[in-house]
């Protein structure tokens, strides 16, 4: 099912024309209304009329999260505060929060792209959408909420937390679509199993999961434990929130709503634009946003793009499931390591739970990697040698896949902290010293 066939199945030429028009208008807006961008554009000798095509994006300046922080709270807004009807903000655990604003039209845009997202996952007005993303300053809850309302579904705005009640209401209300982080969906699945409940006790048929990177193996696990179709959705509050891109049931990459958000892939080190198919950092230009238009915003997410037509009929450019974050990347003894790679190794083995913790340290000037893995009832026995073999196997698989050696520590079930939001998977002690 396609929410907006006109846009989502538009031919390339028409899409590019639309993007060019919208980009020109956006450059006007930021040049005249945002001193930060005017200065940046003037520095490279640009005036508004100069930009006529998205091909020129590569010559325009990039925007980073630091730029948002430096202009905290409303410095990058392109409209007077009287036009801003909503503000969201990141938790700001690593400094000042990142603040984003919306005009009434921005909220309409958000509803539109989330309606596309949910329709893409197969949702219709007949569905009951259980929204366990947090509501509040975080964009997850309200974003899905708008889209679900727009398609006319029945919305359960339960927000995060209180797992027991989540399960109770999901069962009693006959929720059919679950929206939350992928790690929380597994947490819910475990809690259901502990209460002796089976997937057949629920009416769930699909889930829209995002806000953190997750692997194909994790998808398989969610799908089998909850007996649902697990759809990856992508978004970030700086760009709009959830609703930037979403998979269709073919699960072959996420369709980017590029009539609003123009994607590029750059090399995170040289900052040069990379061609389709190459892995790099995803960058967005938000051509229709009024309150907070961002020019070439660096997401830090690593992926690649393809223009191949999808079996679902959409012609929108697709991004591969995020492969990690350029700033989550750990450099261990000179090797680039993404926590998601270790998760893949563990899940592929099917002999442990997908809960792990990486502890990176530096001993005698040498980086060390310790991986904590929970022992599972199903794969452990009364024999020591079997557990030792498991440990050696994990160690071998990590070393062959990642190219770094690791110490494996088997720990008791449930000793690694479960998250109800984003999972904490890495403790880098090198930073603490």
């Amino acid at each position, binding site marked *: 099912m396609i929410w907006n066939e006109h846009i989502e199945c538009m031919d390339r030429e028409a899409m590019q024309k639309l993007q060019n028009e919208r980009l020109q208008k956006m450059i006007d807006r930021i040049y005249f209304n945002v001193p930060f961008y005017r200065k940046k554009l003037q520095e490279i000798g640009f005036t508004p009329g100069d930009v006529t095509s998205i091909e020129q994006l590569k010559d325009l300046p990039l925007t980073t999260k630091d730029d948002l922080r430096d202009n905290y709270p409303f410095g990058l807004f392109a409209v007077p505060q009287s036009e801003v009807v909503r503000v969201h903000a990141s938790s700001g655990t690593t400094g000042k929060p990142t603040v984003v604003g919306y005009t009434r039209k921005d909220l309409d845009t958000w509803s539109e792209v989330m309606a596309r997202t949910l329709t893409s996952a197969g949702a219709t007005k007949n569905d009951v959408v259980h929204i366990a993303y947090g509501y509040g300053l975080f964009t997850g809850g309200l974003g899905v909420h708008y889209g679900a309302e727009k398609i006319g579904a029945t919305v359960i705005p339960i927000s995060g937390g209180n797992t027991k009640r989540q399960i109770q209401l999901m069962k009693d209300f006959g929720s059919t679509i679950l929206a939350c982080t992928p790690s929380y969906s597994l947490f819910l699945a475990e809690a259901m199993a502990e209460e002796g409940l089976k997937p057949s006790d629920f009416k769930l048929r699909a889930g829209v999961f995002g806000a953190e990177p997750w692997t194909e193996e994790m998808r398989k696990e969610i799908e089998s434990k909850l007996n649902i179709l697990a759809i990856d959705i992508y978004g970030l509050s700086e760009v709009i929130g959830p609703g930037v891109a979403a998979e269709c049931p073919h699960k072959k990459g996420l369709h980017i709503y590029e009539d609003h958000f123009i994607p590029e892939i750059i090399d995170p080190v040289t900052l040069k634009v990379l061609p389709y198919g190459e892995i790099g950092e995803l960058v967005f230009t938000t051509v229709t946003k009024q309150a907070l238009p961002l020019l070439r915003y660096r997401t830090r997410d690593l992926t690649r793009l393809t223009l191949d037509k999808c079996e679902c009929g959409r012609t929108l450019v697709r991004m591969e499931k995020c492969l990690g974050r350029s700033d989550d990347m750990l450099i261990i003894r000179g090797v680039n390591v993404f926590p998601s790679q270790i998760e893949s190794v563990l899940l592929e083995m099917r002999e442990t739970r997908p809960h792990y913790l990486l502890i990176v340290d530096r001993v005698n000037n040498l980086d060390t990697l310790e991986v904590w893995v929970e022992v599972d009832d199903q794969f452990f026995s009364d024999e*020591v040698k079997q557990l030792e073999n498991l440990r050696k196997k994990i160690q071998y698989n990590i070393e062959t896949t990642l190219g770094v050696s690791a110490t494996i520590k088997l720990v008791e079930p449930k000793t690694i902290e479960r998250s109800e939001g984003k999972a904490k998977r890495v403790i880098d002690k090198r930073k603490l010293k």
Partner: protein
Amino acid sequence: MIIKQITVFLENKKGRLTEVTRILMENNINMSALSIADTADFGLLRMIVDDPEKAEKTLKNEGFAIHINEVVCMIVPDEPGGLYRALDILTKNDISVEYLYAFSNDSKSASVVIRTDEIEKTIEVLQKNQIKLVKASQLYKI
């Protein structure tokens, strides 16, 4: 003749064994025999208790990884060569022992809990050779 043994995965952390024994005490579960296999990072607590099902359920609920498997318990004379004669029978019948643990009952005999790769064959071979085996019900009562 098959006896159910419970294995609990324990991290090498202070107080974990105490915790298991506390849970068993609070649930009125009695241990008849136990042994611990330890490595640098973790230990495996193997035990025989009077109510294996209850112990399994209770410990699982408390978040422990539990494994149940089958062992046999034989009675050998408490004298030089007592264990040798039983093990020699197993070796001659091509049965390998994964591990065992033993305790003396009185001055005359000892109980030996034994885990082999083929439990049915072990029972058959030992019985054929007049080695006395303890029934589950008897052992749970110790």
